[in-house]
């Protein structure tokens, strides 16, 4: 019976199974290699074997510049590898024209002028953000010849570029390098404190209000007029405000009152001329915004007269309560206002309907009895 089966059939069958297992094994090895390769980048992998690094990792390598400054030419291959560019760029992507050794001589006056000259380099990949910077106050300063105006590398660093918002406070820390005094004020504010102390994801960092690459001059009038809209972005977000038990009606109540009406009309009418009416920051502070319950808040009841007097120097102690502190009139808060409005909301329709009926009856009689 066994002889009936030709051995020629059994052999390929056996071989097929063996090939399958070998194939699977190779696949697993390939996947493992691939996994190790990706995981290894940045963490343990050796610095890319770039020809430049044969020299530029030697400590103390530097070039003397005409103004006496020394341009350091040593970089840390490890920290570059860890940077966001480590696995994507090679040296010559940014530093073009140094292929030949010795390098051709470049006219570099000082370290700053070298940094500024490198400004254009980032554009090759980050075109959109580069273009945005051209609208910024920083670029305008640079254009006017201010060499200290920041370029890409001043905020993002050059070789150690990391994700700018990891951690989130790093954004505000980048600005603090130049804007030291404001930064010191900001970290004491309700927003800054939450950012620094709890790494809060909700509070605004510098760029949330000032913009990221197209940072405008906050001293221009139209920026001031946009402040209510700026604050409204978070302060009308219900899920966000519920977390902190803050009313989302603060913007609406502001906009429906005297200051808000003027400001929102001025926004449409003449956004670039001086508007004296108060915006959010005039009462609540700018970089030093405090909790309204805290004793040093300018809108704390005890401090309110002083805050009003900034614009209304003759304001007396009763004056602040002329503003309902973002509350909507209710029988508890501002009962007089509430009931006066209730009266009119009932009386006006009664009056109008009554008079209209009278007019219509009169007309009807005149028409039917011609």
């Amino acid at each position: 019976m066994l002889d009936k089966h030709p051995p020629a059939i059994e052999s390929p069958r056996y071989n097929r199974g063996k090939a399958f297992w070998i194939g699977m094994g190779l696949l697993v090895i390939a996947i493992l290699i691939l996994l190790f390769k990706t995981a290894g980048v940045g963490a343990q992998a050796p610095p890319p074997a770039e020809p430049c690094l044969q020299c530029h990792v030697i400590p103390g390598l530097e070039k003397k510049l005409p103004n006496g400054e020394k341009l350091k030419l040593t970089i840390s291959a490890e920290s570059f590898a860890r940077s966001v560019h480590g696995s994507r760029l090679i040296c010559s992507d940014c530093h073009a024209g140094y292929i030949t050794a010795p390098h051709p001589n470049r006219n570099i006056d000082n370290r700053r002028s070298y940094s500024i000259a490198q400004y254009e380099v980032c554009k090759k990949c980050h075109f959109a953000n580069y273009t945005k910077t051209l609208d910024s106050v920083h670029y305008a300063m640079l254009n006017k010849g201010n060499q200290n105006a920041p370029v890409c590398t001043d905020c993002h660093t050059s070789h150690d570029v990391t994700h700018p918002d990891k951690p989130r406070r790093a954004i505000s820390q980048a600005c603090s390098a130049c804007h030291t005094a404001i930064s010191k004020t900001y970290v004491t504010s309700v927003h800054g404190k939450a950012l620094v102390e709890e790494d809060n994801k909700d509070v605004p960092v510098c760029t949330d209000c000032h913009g990221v690459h197209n940072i405008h001059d906050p001293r221009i009038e139209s920026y001031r007029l946009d402040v209510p809209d700026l604050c409204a972005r978070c302060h009308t977000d219900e899920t966000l405000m519920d977390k902190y038990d803050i009313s989302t009606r603060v913007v609406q109540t502001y906009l429906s009152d005297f200051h808000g009406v003027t400001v929102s009309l001025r926004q449409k009418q003449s956004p670039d001329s001086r508007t004296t009416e108060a915006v959010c920051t005039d009462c609540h502070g700018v970089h030093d915004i405090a909790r309204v319950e805290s004793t040093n808040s300018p809108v704390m009841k005890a401090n309110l007269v002083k805050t009003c007097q900034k614009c209304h120097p003759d304001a007396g102690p009763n004056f602040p309560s002329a503003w309902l502190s973002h509350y909507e009139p209710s029988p508890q808060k501002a009962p007089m206002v509430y009931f006066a409005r209730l009266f009119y909301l009932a009386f006006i329709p009664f009056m109008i309907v009554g008079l209209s009926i009278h007019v219509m009856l009169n007309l009807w009689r005149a028409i039917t009895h011609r």
Partner: protein
Amino acid sequence: MEQTLEAGPITRARAEYVERFSLSQRMEHLAIMITFTGLAITGLPQKYAGAALSQWLIIHMGGIELTRLIHRILSFIFTAGALYHAGIIFVSIARHQFRPNIFFSFRDYRDAIAVLRYDLGISDKHPEFDRFDFRQKFEYWGIVFGGIIMLISGYFLMFPIFFTRILPGQAIPVAKVFHSYEGLMAFLVIIIWHLYGAHLEPDKFPGDTTIFTGKISRERMQKEHSLEYERIVREERERDEKAQEEKEKIDEKVN
């Protein structure tokens, strides 16, 4: 032969028109007409500042600051008119010439019911009116009380620092509610009531000119203010008779 100086009153009695409003009253109406319209045009867009039409109006009036300035200048004229009106009343009382014909009386209530019955076709008898009918009285008192509310609340809003020195702060938002809603109501009442009563009413279409010329036809007087007209006619007759008597006396003496 009879057309002598003394015959003056007789000629007037035969004239087609009688004088209903003095020049001063006509000027008062003109002033309130202009200021009211101006105040509504500059005020309502401030109440509804979010509406597209309001923004269009405000921008075309030269911006919010200029709109507010115009509103305030008009309010001073309105104030002056109100003080003038109060002064006129005061003087006429002092001279014992004041006739309280604008006050509401029980008769007006009855007239209103009668008009309602007439309009509904229940009755065919239209009530007869004196110098002012109940609708005119209603409009007058609407302007008086509305004007007082608008003036007080308006000055509260114009000088909040001053008023919060003597009053609690809440007075200002209360004044804002009064000013804003009373203004809206005045506007709507004028649109419905005055536009109908003075322009669209079939007898008066396209407009009653009496308030501008001061003159009203005897025919209309007879129809719309019959009680006053009867009095006018009686007075005219008495005057004529008196003049006639005096003329006869003079004639006797001459003869």
